[in-house]
């Protein structure tokens, strides 16, 4: 079946399906980001805090993304792990205005980076809420989270504003490229 599917894909038929995990601390803007990725008609006006998780799927660059939007509240973070296994990419949303909890984000991130199921998976970081005046830049965030120590997996960080969609598309473009270029195993 692998052969047939690869053949189809080479012809540009049948979109590839990719599972994406969206994580981050609570109130960092994960569900809002996802709302932005939906078709215009399906967007909701107000986003409520997620309980548990929500599944969204969207089509970008010929890839069918299935996003698991995990709740970021403290007591649900332990549940993220159950979804690591089938994630082909991770989107980690950082609240660039929440300087106090940057270290908490760092701890959670380190746990994820060390996890064996996520060894070869591309990580996309969003330094979100870039519209707020006193926010950190993407570079500052990367330094705070010591992202440059990651040598074994592809990663990228972008400043974004999920409310207006600024920076979001670029990130997804990069992710699609990474997934396409990855050899199928």
């Amino acid at each position: 079946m692998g052969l047939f599917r690869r053949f189809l894909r080479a012809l540009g038929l049948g979109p590839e399906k990719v599972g994406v995990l969206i994580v981050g601390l609570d109130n960092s803007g994960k569900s809002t980001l996802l709302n932005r990725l939906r078709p215009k008609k399906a967007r909701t006006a107000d986003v409520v805090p997620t309980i548990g998780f929500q599944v969204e799927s969207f089509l970008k660059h010929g890839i069918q993304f299935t996003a698991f939007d995990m709740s970021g509240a403290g007591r649900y973070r332990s549940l993220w792990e159950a979804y690591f296994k089938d994630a082909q990419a991770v989107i980690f949303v950082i609240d660039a205005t929440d300087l106090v909890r940057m270290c908490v984000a760092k701890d959670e991130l380190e746990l994820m980076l060390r996890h064996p199921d996520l060894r070869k998976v591309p990580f996309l970081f969003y330094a979100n809420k870039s519209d707020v005046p006193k926010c950190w830049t993407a570079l500052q965030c990367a330094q705070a989270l010591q992202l440059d120590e990651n040598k074994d997996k592809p990663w990228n960080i972008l400043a974004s504003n999920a409310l207006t969609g600024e920076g979001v598309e670029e990130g997804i473009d990069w992710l699609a490229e990474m997934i396409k270029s990855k050899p199928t195993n």
Partner: protein
Amino acid sequence: MALVNPRDKKDEDRDDETEYSPFFGIEKGAVLQEARVFNDPQLDTRRCQQVITKLLYLLNQGESFTKTEATEVFFATTKLFQSKDIALRRMVYLMIKEITPSADEVIIVTSSLMKDMNSKTDLYRANAIRVLCRIIDGGLLGQIERYLKQAVVDKNPIVASAALVSGIHLLKNNPEIVKRWSNEVQEAVNSKAPLVQFHALALLHQIRQNDRLAVSKLVTSLTRGNVRSPLAQCLLIRYTVQVIHEASGISSSGGERPFYEFLEGCLRHKAEMVIFEAARAITQLEGVTSRELTPAITVLQLFLSSSKPVLRFAAVRTLNKVAMTHPLAVTNCNIDMESLISDQNRSIATLAITTLLKTGNESSVDRLMKQITNFMSDIADEFKITVVEAIRSLCLKFPQKYRTLMNFLSNILREEGGFEYKKAIVDSILILIREIPDAKESGLSHLCEFIEDCEFTYLSTQILHLLGNEGPKTADPSKYIRYIYNRVILENATVRASAVSALAKFGAMVDFLQPRIMVLLRRCLHDNDDEVRDRATLYLQVLGDTKDIAPDGAAAFLSETLNVPLANLEASLKAYEPSEKPFNIAAVSKEAKPLTIAEKKKEKKAQREAAATGAHANGVAPAVSTSSYENLLNAIPEFASIGKLFKSSKPVQLTEEETEYAVNVVKHTYPAHVVFQFNATNTIQEQLLENVEVVMDTSLADEFEEVASIPLKSLPYGSPGQTFVLLAKPEGAVALGKFGNVLKFKVKEVDPASGEPDEEGYEDEYALEDVEVTIGDYIQRTSVSNFRNSWEALDPGLEKVDEYGLGPRESLQEAVKAVINTLGMQPVEGTDQVPSNARSHTALLAGTFIGNVPVLARLSFGIDAQKQVAMKLAVRSEDESVSELIQDIIASS
């Protein structure tokens, strides 16, 4: 080759039998491996469905998953929410419902389910509601309540039904929330969709079930309007029956029965289900008259010839029950039922037969028996037992026919059968022997033949015991000896021992057999079992190896039985304290109490009584028997020193029904004290009562003095509790009096949400009705085996006779019952039952007055055309003053 062949053959056999069950050979480990496909990025929906089916199968087979396994499967399943396949989504719902995730995991699917609950697909909505209500906890329920309320009145019947059914489930844990939906549910009752109407009615009733008035209103309004759904109509009939039952508890019958017309109307309904339900309801009405019964029976008769087996079964089963109480009403259906004997379905055939046996007349017995014999061999044991029981009651009804019936019983006794079946037959024969003297000889010889080839020790010993008791009294006792001695040679130790006992009884009671019996018994001295040898030795001694004991004494020794129920004897022996006074076996109450008979039965009865007296649903469970009271009282240290309990009265209600606090009292009489046991029930959910006690006003009763009062620490909602008051009176004296009572307690408000009581409380009191100590409290019910002998034995000089007019009464039976209740004595020889239409009746009563004075009374009743009842009461006892007191009871009431 030789090794392989048999296995091949086996496989072939199995293939033929099982027809490839789709679930053949499913194994947990393998399925859990397969469940990994849920994580596949390219979901194969068909395969996922199959795996879920397998998992569900495992769960339903009782396979248990460990915590980690369950968690893994659960999380894997949640990933399937990404699929848009409707069939798969349904399986996902089922899976989540079945695996019931733990509290901290539930949260993970809540969002997804809430989203589905508001989706456009009705199927998603209905199922999501069901699953969500199943797994959600009270806290989150508040968030989705709004959606559920809307769903109840949804246009789509599937969604509405789902919400209603969820409501029924939620009512158990979160009643407050569901109760707020009342208006929506009411609207749903009027829905056009049959299933919605059905579920809505069920939920509405559940919401109001504790409020009798509301249920009654509900039924009244719905019986007038038209309920479309047959299922809802059936439900309505059941609720109606409930209302009728409760109403009849309050106002005793007479006049038109409410709602009867509605039930009768339902007999003409389109749906068979409704017709049957209505017919069944009518037959089960309390005190149903034959006029009311006729239309229901007619309908059931039509069902008997229906082409649907289930209708035939239902009809014949109902008729079977009716036949127990109103055999005449069923006779019309006899012809239809006779054709059912040859029915394909054995259950129907058996029920038809047993019903016919109950309703049949004497002339048809022979014909019926012939038909039964034909099909006896091809029905299962349980059915055979039913048939045997029916035959037993038939035989008791027509004693002249015993020969045919006894022959039939002995025939089936010889056939193959399990223990229960054989036991039922033997029991029947034993009862017949006891009840029908003519049947004794033939019955005994049938039993003798049976034990020649009986594989059940229990039955053998039982029969040997009976032979020992009855055999010597027959015309030719010697013929039984052979059968009994055969047992000594052939059987196991238990049977041998009872055979030896039986032999000894023959020896003791039949003089000319005694030498021969002695020879047989001596042989048993060399038996290799201790018990058998011991018995043989004992009986040889008793029967006259030594001449000390007269032969009469031997007979008496061997045949005397303990005429006291063993349970009572045990209780009395436990209560006996070693002292100068010897233990008096005569003081043991002879009233048989249903202690040893299955405890369940008793509870059921108690519940029924509670329902009958209209006690609150969670009301006081009346603990009936004296010895259970005794255990309760003995457990309280204050009551340890006041001696032996003489009598406990029946509970007397001290409050109106359905008030805030339901209280009844039980009076316990002791030689020098009276203990009042107040059973209190708190029916207010929002209150917790503490330090509950009853303050008794003894100012009107000079002879009593309050000694102790034992308050109840706390009385939460719904569970009854007891508080006691101990009064002293002069020893042995018959002190009478009336007491005013007030219930005092401290009220604490309970928060309905958390169930936690407030810290602060306030004192309150509640007036109760008066309690009276009457002479009846000093009389214990005892029974005598032979009233005539006991009556003659008492000095006629001490007899007190008087005549009374009891005024107009409804019937003689009612008058007799009232007098017996007033006297508190035990009716003997079944004289409390008055044959219908009798113009006069004599009732015989026995009792023991405090101080162990036996009292006997003879009541002669007469009734005239104006329903005026007159009574002549003759009392005899050893103490004249006691007889006078008994007369006083009637004179004063």
